[in-house]
């Protein structure tokens, strides 16, 4: 039945996607809710929360305020927080209850901005959409509101757009990516939004190329392309041959001299693997597909996603999933030899499917359950992960079991 979820937990909602993007930028980030939605983000969607001093709050909306449409209390609380915490912007993020009462976020932003002198961002999220929509809105808002025209252009400058723990899992993945790009001769102007400040992001127009590492960064990258003529590439380096191709492509874009990768020899297909399914975020899943194809010779690979998919990144074989039934039908129909995805998808397909399942944790599904698993997929580690997962499954030891 559409909309009925019997096995999977809910995915990270849109408001958490916004919060994840804004988390490190030094603002006052407020979910307009009764505390439960904020608890979702702080407890289940944000690995950086423990020990953090990021100012993420709940507005503590109550029934009487909602029924009476009393926004004065909210404005007073926001103003008070701006006064005592002294941060650089305010973000007001919607949740289901204010959607029901038709909260006018633009009016709230106008009043609050006048009272505090701070930029006020608003996001009309409602918990009915998933994190990718919220994160995409937030990246777009950063591009629209904070990026300044550049007086200089850094020849080897790149921005990384689309970095959140919801897709990458942990900070080490971003650090590895930055290290790879730096070694290739790139200068990182900004990383949206892990490890960069709002000031770094404001300087983004100095870069000559945007590297979009998740679908959530695409809309912002397209805006920057139209507004500042900065082209973008979408991809993330996973595996051996794909990482070499990725680096070569970026060097080519930037005109950086370097020894090109040796021509790739087609890999011998892994015995017994005729087709594979990858379930997850689109850019990462496409990168995993490249790894399977180039490093392991597995060419019949479908990407399926419960999250939004971009037509430009889509292959004919790929699928958008609108519920558990879509995934079960897809797997029943194709009986894949290999499935790669968050460990929790395995619970859904296990009753009727026997094959090799490779665990590829995705915080936007399994949240805190695997975010400390030390998951590592960037570069060569990605190939090691997939190879080990696929080959060791036959000996009865799966990655899924080990990361638990």
């Amino acid at each position, binding site marked *: 039945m559409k*909309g009925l979820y*019997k096995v999977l937990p809910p995915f*990270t909602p849109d408001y958490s996607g916004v919060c994840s993007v804004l988390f490190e930028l030094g603002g006052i980030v407020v979910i307009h809710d009764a505390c439960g939605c904020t608890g*979702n983000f*702080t407890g289940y969607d944000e690995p950086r929360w423990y*020990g953090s001093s990021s100012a993420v709050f709940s507005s503590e909306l*109550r029934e009487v305020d909602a029924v009476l449409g009393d926004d004065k209390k909210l404005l007073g609380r926001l103003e008070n927080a701006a006064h005592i915490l002294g941060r650089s912007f305010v973000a007001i993020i919607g949740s289901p209850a204010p959607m029901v009462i038709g909260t006018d976020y633009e009016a709230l932003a106008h009043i609050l901005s006048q009272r505090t002198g701070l930029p006020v961002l608003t996001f009309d999220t409602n918990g*009915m959409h998933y994190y990718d929509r919220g994160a995409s809105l937030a990246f777009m808002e950063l591009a629209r509101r904070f990026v300044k025209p550049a007086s200089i252009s850094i020849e080897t400058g790149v921005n990384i757009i689309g970095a959140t723990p919801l897709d990458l899992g942990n900070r080490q993945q971003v650090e590895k990516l930055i290290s790879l790009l730096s070694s290739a001769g790139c200068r990182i102007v900004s990383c949206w939004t892990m490890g960069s400040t709002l000031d770094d992001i404001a300087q983004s127009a100095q870069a000559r190329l945007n590297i979009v590492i998740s679908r959530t960064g695409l809309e912002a990258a397209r805006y920057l392309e139209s507004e500042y003529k900065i082209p973008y590439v979408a991809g993330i380096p996973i595996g051996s041959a794909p990482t070499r191709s990725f680096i070569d492509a970026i060097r080519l874009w930037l005109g950086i001299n370097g020894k090109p990768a040796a021509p790739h020899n087609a890999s011998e297909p892994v015995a017994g693997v005729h087709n594979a399914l990858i379930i997850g975020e689109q850019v990462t899943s496409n990168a995993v597909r490249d790894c399977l194809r180039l490093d392991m010779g597995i060419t019949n690979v479908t990407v399926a996603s419960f999250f939004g998919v971009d037509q430009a990144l889509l292959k004919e074989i790929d699928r958008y999933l609108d519920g558990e039934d879509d995934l079960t039908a897809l797997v029943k129909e194709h009986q894949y030899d290999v499935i790669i995805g968050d460990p929790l998808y395995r619970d859904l397909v296990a009753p009727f499917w026997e094959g090799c399942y490779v665990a590829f944790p995705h915080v936007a599904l399994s949240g805190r359950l695997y975010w400390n698993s030390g998951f590592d997929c960037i570069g060569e580690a990605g190939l090691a992960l997939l190879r080990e997962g696929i080959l060791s499954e036959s000996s009865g030891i799966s990655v899924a079991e080990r990361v638990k």
Partner: protein
Amino acid sequence: MSSNAFYLPISEVGGVGSHWQRKVMPSNCLHYCPPSAGGWGIIRVGLLVPESVMLFVSPAGCGRHGAIAGIQLGFKKRLFLLYLGEVDIVTGQHMERIPQAVADILATAQRRPKALLICATCVDALLGSDYDGLTRQLEAEHKIPVRICHMDPIAMDGKTPPPLTVQEAVYSFLQPSRQKEPAVNIIGNFAPIDAESEFYDVMADAGIGAVRHIAACSSLEEFQLMSRSTHNVLIKQGGRLAVRQMQERLGIPFCFAPVAYGLETIAQTYHTLGEFLGVELCTERYREEAEEAINSYQSALGPLSVAVGSTANASPFELARALTEYGFRVRYVFADLILDFDVEHVEWLKHHTPDVEVFTNVHPTMVDFLNCGLTADLAVGFDAGYFCSGAKTVPLTLDSQPYGYRGVISLLREMLNAFEHPSNHREQMYASGMVI
């Protein structure tokens, strides 16, 4: 204090608000959710009903914390989620989809559930959705009891906040019974009183044949035996609506005999309980046992400085008082609410330990807690352990239930254990599966 974190000297603690709970924090503040926030959550409490399943009807995001905690703690297989979309909100169509979802769940369940809870959220509270008619329809169709509960934190400051109404829903599965047995039901908490507690012997000596708790019932049938009990003992405020409903509907009177750690408070509680049951309860030897333990553990632990939190299985103010009476130095209390039961203990602390500082978990200035430099040797409760980051932490979670004089001994044992076998706070806290 070197930081700007909001706190009150105990002498200034009074609280603002109405009804049965007063807030420590001023009302003009945003709400901070520290990682240590949470407890059992509505879903886990609802699923205390044996052999039940829950259908959670909400926008997709609302069920996330409960469902992931369910996977972590093993109850997810009894939880099903029906997502609402914008069209449902506008048209109310989701009410028409619920019967189909229930039929699907019951038809495909490996083992047919014997009870169903439907959990609605803030959205339905605002829409005024009528679940009463729906539950009757579903009961008639599927021949199992169906109840509605709410996870609507939007009602948290009202007279029927969700932590109370969910317990009311849970016990509303009990059917009136003509048969009565000299037994007590323990209400308000989530785990049976620890087997080591003297409570069982004290009750047996008083002629009480059984001490019943929902979490000890392995079947719906066994749970129904609670209707036969002659008395309800409310040991946590979360069950206050439930016991009133049971008094009215099942004719079971109740008595408030709260979990406490101070010897005088425990003595007073047993006295009240004895009056309620109409018998004299003999507890003196257990008190002596606890006094000996306090002396012994106090010597072993030394003059500790302690922080007391509100996630601990205790009233933070009563526990702070108890620890002071044992001989420890309580420096900080982390508390967001002052309940009726707390008032007497707040007053005691004002008089005896005026240097105690009371922080809230939720004030916006707590985001800078690392700069507060709060230090204590020992923290009781995950929240106290989080804010006093160098302290050894005694979680004292809701997953087990110390009670009475041996609850004191259990606490002291855990305090010593925290020093002998220190744990990583973060790992320990996330493993507990606490849900806001």
